[in-house]
């Protein structure tokens, strides 16, 4: 599965995207798995309320199942316009 990071999430983790081999059942499980890896992930994911997630390019919730999902993205609230 491809995991993408944008804005300050990308800066804290230090890369824009990576391919992750995971058995995580939900977005929440994936976050827990990534956070356990290294301090920079833990720091980026420390405040879930400050983050948004997209699953296969659609805004989604933390309990979204990851079965068959190809792409998950993490980013701060959007500031378009």
């Amino acid at each position: 599965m491809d995991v993408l990071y944008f804005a300050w999430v990308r800066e804290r983790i230090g890369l824009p995207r990576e391919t992750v081999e995971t058995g995580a059942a939900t977005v929440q499980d994936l976050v827990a798995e990534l956070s356990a890896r290294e301090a920079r992930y833990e720091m980026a994911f420390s405040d879930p309320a400050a983050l948004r997630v997209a699953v296969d390019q659609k805004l989604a919730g933390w309990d979204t199942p990851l079965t068959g999902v190809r792409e998950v993205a993490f980013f701060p609230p959007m500031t378009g316009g």
Partner: protein
Amino acid sequence: MRVQEAPFDLGAEASAFAARQAGMGAVVTFTGIVRDLDGSLDHMLIEHYPGMTEKALRGIAEEAHARWDLGGSLVIHRHGQLGPDDMIMMVATASRHRKDAFEAAMFLMDYLKSRAPFWKKEVTNGAAAWVDARDVDEEALKDWE
């Protein structure tokens, strides 16, 4: 709907958009411009999520067409580096009646502020900071629910 790094010509885009409309009595355009409130902004960087951005903008436009009597709509949003007073984005709507055109333009703006995957970073006096999303922008969406 276009997402591009290059500047756009507001007059040319608005004229071409209006010319494409048949039987529409009203065209509304809105343009967002880079603000430099206290004269300290060096430049702004806009990041986006290629793929999702286009899908999100298309979804927001489809919703606007479902809610109002629109003949057409246009969204152009830039990314990359922009300077003070540069145009960031524009929205145009066309309808037989001005009320639909105005309301749909407001709706498009409100949604693309908080639901299209763009992020702004401001560089002032050599220091860079991500622009925080504002609660008031999130609140604005509730008026459309």
